[in-house]
């Protein structure tokens, strides 16, 4: 049983994020904080709703972390604001998680209760690991596309540094409207929602159920100054047809590779916007920013955000100082102190000679002779095909460079002789596998040319964060390949 008598730890005070937002509620109470289903919600009302939610926070026993199912709504945001104001850590699990995964996560985060805006779900099981470190606010989770989601606790001070940077960099201030496309549990919301509220701007919330309806999204975007989203949003807008001349001033693509066709469509969709590619991981938040030139390929990572340091490390652990490929290790002012599990932390964080802790991103990055950095793929997607090291994501990127390819996922399928063979699942118009093989062979080592192609008629299934759902694609498409 959780104990009810724990005194509140001395370090628990309101986070800077909450203080700044509540100050907005006092200085400009009638300014619109949120737009939800066509209705504005003022900073005063957001503050009032947070105060009401704060009353319910006495219910969960003890002072431990709580889980808030991240259903996107003004009430969820008000509840999170109340938790930030109380200095109480919270885990933000996706509403789409299956019950056993949710349970593992809340246990791992030591949550004493699961809150929703609807009801108090009662105390959870006893914590399996220790409580998060002092000063933790958000506990985000990694996207889990390659395994079980990991809990990423963020200190209030790190979140504050991030929201301050993001608001300044993308000119978010009072009267700026920002689209919130990503789910609340995704790190993108630290910019879309929290940097905007800190800056006194207006967050336009996209309803989860309508996140793929291009007409609806275009209607929202007619009143938005800043938009950050995975390439899927821009792809949807571009493919819909007839959408153009949206007024945004800053348009940021992040989280995935921007396909050529989508990149080429951006200037017409957003003629007044500066276009960016933003690179970051949940553990570090945004690390590299690149202002896009729609004609230049491949898209570089860009330059490090203020205060960010990075190195490339080769497979033997040596620093890659000149041109070459290595895993990107990055240190940012916004990063987590580590996972809740010390073993995981030791595996993914390392202290380098400058005394700073660097995060092993798992991303393979190429440094070109001029110094530009480009993504090669994930170290996780590194496989051997006929003895040759191949990165399945580099093959995907090559396929996406073909004008007629709209989506491409390349899966490594274990093979008794070859080690692995590559299966490409492609959505394309009017090309056959011979054309695509030639296209790949012109860009990649021969071992990286997929040995099987499947053509999908429908959009490929994606996860809640807009990344290809590799598990489902493998089930739905690769089993259908007849050799």
């Amino acid at each position: 049983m959780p104990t009810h008598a724990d005194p509140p730890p001395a370090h628990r005070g309101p986070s800077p994020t909450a203080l700044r937002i509540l100050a907005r509620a006092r200085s400009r109470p009638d300014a619109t904080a949120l737009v939800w289903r066509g209705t504005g919600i003022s900073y005063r009302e957001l503050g009032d709703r947070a105060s009401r939610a704060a009353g319910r926070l006495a219910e969960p026993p003890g002072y431990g972390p709580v889980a808030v199912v991240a259903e996107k709504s003004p009430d969820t945001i008000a509840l999170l604001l109340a938790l930030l104001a109380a200095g109480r850590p919270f885990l933000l699990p996706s509403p789409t998680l299956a019950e056993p995964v949710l349970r593992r996560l809340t246990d791992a985060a030591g949550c004493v209760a699961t809150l929703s805006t609807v009801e108090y779900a009662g105390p959870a099981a006893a914590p399996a690991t220790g409580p998060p470190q002092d000063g933790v606010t958000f506990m985000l989770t990694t996207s889990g596309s390659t395994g079980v989601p990991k809990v990423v606790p963020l200190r209030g001070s790190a979140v504050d540094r991030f929201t301050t940077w993001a608001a300044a960099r993308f000119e978010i201030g009072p009267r700026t409207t920002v689209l919130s496309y990503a789910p609340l549990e995704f790190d993108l919301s630290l910019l879309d929602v929290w940097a905007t509220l800190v800056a006194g701007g207006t967050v336009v919330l996209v309803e989860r159920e309508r996140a793929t309806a291009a007409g609806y999204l275009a209607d929202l975007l007619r009143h938005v100054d800043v938009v950050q989203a995975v390439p899927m949003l821009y792809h949807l807008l571009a493919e819909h047809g007839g959408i153009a001349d949206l007024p945004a001033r800053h348009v940021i693509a992040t989280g995935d590779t921007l396909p050529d066709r989508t990149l080429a469509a951006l200037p017409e969709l957003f003629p007044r916007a500066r276009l960016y590619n933003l690179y970051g991981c949940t553990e570090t938040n945004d690390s590299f920013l690149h202002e896009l030139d729609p004609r230049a390929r491949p898209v570089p990572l860009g330059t490090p955000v203020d205060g960010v340091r990075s190195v490339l490390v080769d497979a033997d652990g040596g620093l890659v100082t000149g041109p070459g490929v290595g895993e990107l290790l990055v240190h940012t002012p916004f990063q987590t102190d580590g996972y809740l599990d010390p073993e995981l932390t030791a595996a993914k964080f390392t202290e380098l000679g400058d005394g700073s802790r660097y995060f092993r991103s798992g991303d393979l990055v190429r440094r070109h002779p001029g110094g530009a950095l480009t993504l090669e793929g994930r170290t996780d997607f590194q496989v051997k095909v006929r003895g040759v090291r191949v990165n399945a994501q580099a093959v995907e990127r090559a396929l996406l460079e073909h004008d007629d390819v709209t989506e491409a996922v390349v899966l490594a399928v274990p093979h008794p002789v070859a080690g692995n063979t590559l299966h490409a699942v492609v959505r394309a118009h009017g090309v056959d596998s011979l054309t695509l093989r030639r296209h790949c062979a012109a860009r990649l080592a021969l071992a990286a040319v997929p040995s099987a192609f499947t053509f999908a008629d429908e959009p490929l299934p994606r996860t809640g964060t807009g990344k290809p759902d590799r598990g489902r694609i493998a089930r739905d498409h690769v089993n259908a390949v007849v050799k």
Partner: protein
Amino acid sequence: MPQTAADPTGEVTRFVLTEFLPDVAADRLDPDEDLVASGVIDSLGLLKLIAWLADRFAVPVDEVDLDPDAFRSVAAIAAFVTATAGRG
């Protein structure tokens, strides 16, 4: 008797399409297409092809020189078959 007289191009084309390019229309495959350079036939594919040639055209694979260049295209494979089939 194994086939030796007729031009094997059509049959080789059908095998390559069925085995390696199931989505490709027959008229899209140029007999001179470099199947190795375009990644259609890799080393495993080559083994599969040779096994089929041995079976279908009685190519004595243990005796002839298996020059990879002989298998670069449908035309090259057909020429190889014409030159060696049934010889053993």
